[in-house]
């Protein structure tokens, strides 16, 4: 922080005003940081639950896939998988959370499964389709956590910089300026006293 220092009362007042502004910014950032920590903790909790449920579903799908593969062979499943021509449509909308743009994934269209696959493969396709929705929720939550965590890191750096560098810097400067201003006020006072005493002495000599 480089400031050209003018040891004046005006600057002292200005610095005190600035310090008060920086302190309220620091308090605000601290509130933001606490809120972000809360958001991340609850999102991690939700992610843990969602992921556990998703992993269970995926395990189930993989088990069914393995069993179907054992029953019908890989070729049957590979060829059946080509029957689906419809595409999944999703929409990613940004949402502002404490100044951070996080994505919200909206499922616009999931392909219709019924009657599109041979009946012995449809059950597996239906299960895999069910997993997809959960996968999107997990991806959305992971992106949310990642973006908020990145912002938390930046907020933390700012809070620390204010706490450890900027506020102490201002306080030091204010102290130095206020010392100098007080010193100069005292010198002025003494100087006035001396001048007053000298004038009185001269007046007394003239009278005598």
């Amino acid at each position, binding site marked *: 922080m480089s400031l050209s220092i003018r040891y004046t009362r005006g600057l002292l007042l200005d610095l005190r005003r600035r310090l008060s502004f920086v302190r309220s910014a620091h308090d605000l950032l601290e509130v933001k940081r606490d809120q972000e920590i809360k958001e991340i903790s609850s999102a991690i909790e939700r992610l843990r639950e969602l992921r556990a449920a998703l992993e269970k579903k995926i395990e189930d799908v993989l088990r069914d896939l393995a069993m179907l*593969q054992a*029953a019908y062979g*890989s*070729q049957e499943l590979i*060829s059946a998988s080509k029957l689906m021509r419809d595409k999944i449509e999703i929409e990613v909308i940004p949402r502002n959370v404490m100044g951070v743009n996080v994505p919200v994934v909206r499922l616009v269209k999931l392909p219709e499964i019924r009657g599109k696959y041979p*009946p012995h493969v*449809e059950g597996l396709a239906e299960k895999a389709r069910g997993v997809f929705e959960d996968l999107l929720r997990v991806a959305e939550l992971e992106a949310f956590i990642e973006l908020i965590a990145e912002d938390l890191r930046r907020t933390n750096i700012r809070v620390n910089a204010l706490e450890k560098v900027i506020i102490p810097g201002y306080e030091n400067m204010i102290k130095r300026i206020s010392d100098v201003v007080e010193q100069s006020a005292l010198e002025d006072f003494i100087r006035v006293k001396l001048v007053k005493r000298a004038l009185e002495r001269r007046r007394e000599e003239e009278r005598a």
Partner: protein
Amino acid sequence: MSSSALNQFIEGLSGTAYEHYISGSKTLDEIERGLAEALVDRLAALLSLAEGGARSFLKAYLGKYETINLTWILRMKIGESTGEELEMILLPTEKLGGIELKPLLEARDLQALRDAIQRSGMYELSKDADDPLQLEADLWRSHYRRVFKLASRIRISDSREVRGFLGLEVDLANLKTCMLALLRGWDPEKVKQLLIFNPAGIPLKKLREAIEERDPKVLVERFRMFKGFLEKALASDEWALEFEGLRIMKRYADSQRISKFISFFYILKYILELEVEYRNLRAIAVAIRHNLPQSLRRSLLIMD
């Protein structure tokens, strides 16, 4: 881990007829291809021994592997797969005297493929159907029509057993379609279009009436002979239905007491045994690859 276990599987088959087909295989796909090739070679050897009407029938019956190939080609063409991708999955059915697959693989789109299949003169596809499942059903219908037609030319004394075997095969296929489609809530009209006419088994009329009820339990009630088979589907194990179907076929083949030393039924039984062995080996390889628990592995095998 599964890779070394697959190596053990390959080593386990060394010294058998399969060694030549799967030694050096690195992946499950390669093993599956090797096993399928071994099956087709054995069937081709069997076909080369047959003569006259028996040969014609056998060729038509073995056409089921060609029909399987055609359903795969159909699906892959819909998915716009390349010729190389297709060649990777196909069974070498040309060894069984089937139609030439090259023109089918070169077909630009579904329409060109349909035309090429029609030109072979072996299959009849519905003109206005564009639903792949209906086209697959058309292929199977053509196959079984041809097989039943030729079955009637087999010596009369063998014909009853052969027709019984074929009838059971079609019944199981039809019931599987009905059961799974109803469980998934398909429109009965669509299900009806997928059924195969069976001159030696459950009449289509009976199946259609049962489908109209839209209730899978009705199928179990009306076709009590297949109760165990149909209940596998109710337990929501689609895969188990396939194994159970083969088990029923094998039990049926084993239970038949043929009074003669020479009967065409033995050939069908032998083909079934080859198919069962192929399916068992494939299931073991898949189970190893996916590290399935021992309890499940047993349920994948078709045993005596």
